[in-house]
């Protein structure tokens, strides 16, 4: 087995570590042959492996630079099963929010404009740089953040930011037990039902929203559906399987488990659902209420921008 990170925060690797003592069950059934967070194995070692040498690779993180892309391709070639592990590999995740900006905008902001940056020579990262000792190289930073399956063929998707460790163990045990696996391309380690189906908060079928509120603006009673209190909760457009981590902690769902089956674009599904709850029929009133949703794109596509229909903001220079 291998675990690798692309453009990721490290949380997915930690979720694998979170199997705790169950790690013994894992290593009893599989050799870990590559896992940068835990083992010192070099890229060259992986490149030297035979094709399909690795039974299963959990690839977490999005693809945002040439190093991520290279390793996605290498691991695809070396693995029997490639799993997009976590929201970023699945749909782009939080790093995917960079698709609201262009490469130029990001580099300018980070290296030139930040008030805490001192960069008198206006140096920007170079992919290669000559020094006395030879050539130094850096991965190429791409304009667009991509999901794993926009880069290589993916066998399974395991959603979550990060995936719930119990789900990982279930999936792992199912694979090593030799049980029949779901068809390629399936989402695994999550339920077919949505968050709302199992949410224990009190809810009615007809939700009427006159005012959208940010979570800090309500006095949550701990019982009533967030949407019915005017707080946007992505439950209606999100798969179950996380154990209602956020809702149990009295925070609305942000959608990290991705869309339920047969929904291609989670944000569009959520926009469709939330708009119909707006309790107004007059255009001006609808607009007033809609304007209370401060950042629709960021709210409805928090974890899924690159994997959504539009994938990124249209470049200014083109529009």
């Amino acid at each position, binding site marked *: 087995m291998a675990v690798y990170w692309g453009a990721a925060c490290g949380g997915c690797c930690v979720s694998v570590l979170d199997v705790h003592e169950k790690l013994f069950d894992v290593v009893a059934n599989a050799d870990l042959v590559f896992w940068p967070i835990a083992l010192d194995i070099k890229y060259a070692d992986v490149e030297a492996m035979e094709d399909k040498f690795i039974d299963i690779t959990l690839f977490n993180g999005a693809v945002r630079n040439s190093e991520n892309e290279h390793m996605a391709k290498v691991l695809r070639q070396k693995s029997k099963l490639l799993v997009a592990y976590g929201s970023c590999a699945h749909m782009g995740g939080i790093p995917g929010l960079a698709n*609201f900006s262009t490469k130029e905008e990001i580099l300018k902001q980070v290296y030139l404009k930040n008030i805490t940056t001192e960069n008198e020579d206006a140096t920007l990262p170079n992919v290669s740089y000559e020094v006395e000792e030879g050539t130094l190289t850096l991965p190429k930073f*791409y*304009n*667009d953040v*991509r999901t794993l399956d*926009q880069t290589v063929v993916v066998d399974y998707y395991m959603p979550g930011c990060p995936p719930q460790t119990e789900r990982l163990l279930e999936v792992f045990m199912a694979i090593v037990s030799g049980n029949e696996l779901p068809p390629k391309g399936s989402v695994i380690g999550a339920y077919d039902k949505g968050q709302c189906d199992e949410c224990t908060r009190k809810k009615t079928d007809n939700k009427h929203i006159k005012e959208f509120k940010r979570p800090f603006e309500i006095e949550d009673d701990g019982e009533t559906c967030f949407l019915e209190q005017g707080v946007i909760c992505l439950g209606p457009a999100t798969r179950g399987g996380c154990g209602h981590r956020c809702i149990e902690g009295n925070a609305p769902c942000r959608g990290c488990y991705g869309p339920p089956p047969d929904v*291609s*674009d989670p*944000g*569009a*599904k959520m*926009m*469709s659902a*939330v*708009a*119909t709850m*707006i309790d*107004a*029929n007059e*255009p001006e009133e*609808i*607009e007033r209420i*809609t*304007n209370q*949703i401060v*950042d*629709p*794109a*960021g709210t*409805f596509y928090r974890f899924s921008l690159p994997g*959504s*229909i*539009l*994938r*990124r*903001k*249209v*470049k*200014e220079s*083109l*529009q």
Partner: protein
Amino acid sequence: MDFEPTIVSFLCNWCSYTGADLAGTSRMKYAHNIRIIRVMCSGRIDPIFVLESFKDGADGVLICGCHPGDCHYHEGNYKCLRRYHLLKKYIAQMGIDPGRLHLEWISASEGKQFAELADSFTETVRGLGPCHVKEIIENFA
């Protein structure tokens, strides 16, 4: 060369499609840029339809339904109106000019209004120039 916009238009079966049909049977001329898709009710227009249209190369999207109070499914057009306002806000954030998405109520007898709307919206979109969503997705890297 003159830019000829492609406009995808979703019309509800009961009023707006009949209105467009009337424009046709009355032999009114209107912009050929409009590609009509008939849906049962404007409330059936999922935001996904609109986004997919832009993805597949539409320069503008026109939505038409029955006038308020006239929807054959009671409040489908109100649902449509609410989605429309939210969608406009969303596409603006995505760098798509919100003027590329337009909603208008057209009744079964408003053939003339439909023909005029087709012309005026085509001119609006022509003025906005080509929409680059398709190109961006094709060159996504």
